[in-house]
């Protein structure tokens, strides 16, 4: 069986052809010339997102919108809203409230167009036994499935991308396909990611997900309001993760998981605004961040609003 890898450009190369082409020192040999229409070369020579000017971004987005429209037979809007000045996003999660219902996990999947099969989820809810040495991640359980939550003697801790100020994943990426935006969100350019998964190895929180298979999601379930750096449909062989719902939050809205949480355990806001909810949490409650000792400096704060 020849190993065929399909890439974002929609070009199928088997390894042998590629090596042949490489041996001749002529990339063109390896690339099927009948596919060599303008859009193909545009995609091939697409610049790094941060080096593009607004015009170039617009062109790329138009090309992608066309591709998505052909694939899903419906219009998909790709935004490219820039970070707002004076905004640094922070997240709070009240562990004394979370009941482990996993509503957030699925709201995130719906909002952010994750693959349903193979399953990709950005939030993992961990269950811990209440006790002295409670935050022992090794002892946590993510497959709990009782009739009802919360279960007595347990508490729950959802984990997703912690949007570190000092993100190890960004340093690990050999192609700079992932970086931290000025509003603090760590983003991935799915057209720049080569799928080496170094970032996944580097992330201390297990927050990154890999598309091992062709992401599958029925067209009618695709959320058409997307962002280039956020929830636009992904490809096989690229890495993705929570983006604080960049497509919503850069337009002033709360993230999807904040809005679904039935107990209101999830808080979101601008860390630079002293009036924000997240600042109130940090100033009035006992907050901690996960694996603080690694100096990743996450902008995701866990807290206990009430001692219970």
């Amino acid at each position: 069986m020849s190993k065929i890898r399909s890439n974002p450009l929609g070009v199928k190369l088997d390894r042998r052809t590629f090596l042949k082409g490489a041996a001749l020192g002529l990339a063109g040999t390896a690339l099927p010339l009948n596919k060599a229409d303008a859009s193909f070369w545009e995609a091939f020579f697409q610049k790094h997102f941060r080096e593009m000017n607004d015009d170039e971004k617009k062109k790329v987005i138009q090309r992608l919108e066309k591709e998505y429209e052909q694939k899903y037979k419906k219009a998909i809007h790709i935004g490219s809203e820039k970070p707002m000045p004076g905004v640094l996003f922070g997240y709070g999660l009240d562990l004394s409230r979370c009941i482990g219902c996993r509503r957030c996990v699925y709201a995130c999947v719906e909002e952010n167009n994750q693959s349903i099969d193979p399953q990709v989820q950005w939030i993992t809810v961990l269950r811990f036994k209440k006790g002295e040495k409670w935050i022992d991640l090794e002892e946590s359980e993510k497959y709990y499935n009782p009739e009802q939550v919360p279960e007595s003697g347990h508490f729950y801790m959802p984990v997703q991308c912690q949007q570190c100020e000092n993100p190890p994943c960004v340093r690990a990426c050999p192609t700079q396909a992932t970086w931290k935006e000025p509003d603090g969100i760590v983003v991935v350019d799915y057209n720049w990611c080569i799928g080496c998964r170094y970032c996944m190895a580097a992330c201390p929180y297990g927050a990154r997900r890999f598309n091992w298979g062709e992401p599958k999601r029925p067209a009618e379930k695709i959320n058409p309001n997307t962002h280039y750096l956020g929830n636009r449909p992904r490809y096989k062989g690229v890495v993705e993760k929570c983006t604080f719902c960049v497509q919503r939050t850069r337009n002033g809205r709360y993230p999807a998981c904040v809005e679904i949480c039935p107990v209101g355990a999830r808080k979101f806001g601008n860390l630079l605004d002293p009036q924000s909810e997240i600042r109130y949490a940090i100033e009035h409650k006992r907050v901690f961040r996960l694996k603080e000792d690694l100096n990743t400096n996450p902008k995701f704060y866990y807290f206990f609003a009430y001692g219970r």
Partner: protein
Amino acid sequence: MNIYGKKIGLAILIALFPLVCAVFSFAESKGQEVPKKFLVPPPPFSPGIFPCSQCHKYMPVNKKQRKLEQMHQDITLKHMPGGWCFDCHNPDDRDKLRLANGKLISFDESYYLCAQCHGVVFRDWKAGLHGKRTGMWNGEKQYRLCVHCHWPHDPPFKPLQPLPPPARPADIK
């Protein structure tokens, strides 16, 4: 010169100190009240039950503490041992709630009533920390009334069925 300017500024500040304090304490006393009306959805009445006056208008007021037998039997009060309807409901105008100080409030401001005992939670709720809010993180926010999550006659949050756990690696084909 510069130094003088600074000193004068400081002197003025010190002179004005009592005034500044007054302004702050005024702001603080205002802070006791909720500064604005919170955007909340309508209270979660059982269908058809409000306004209460549609029935109570025609009934004599019986202030005796008793077991209800003709209506509202579904309510067993599991909130405040020894509590009773008129701790919160207003006997003379049933469409209002009544605070301990006698002030009448409408059902869509019921948080004042809860705040009489749950002051710490109320403080957090006002700041947006307790309870759910939706809308804009930098703009208009939809609050929830306490009673949207806590049925006032039996307040603890009711357990839910969790959504399915993630697929185990062994289940992935």
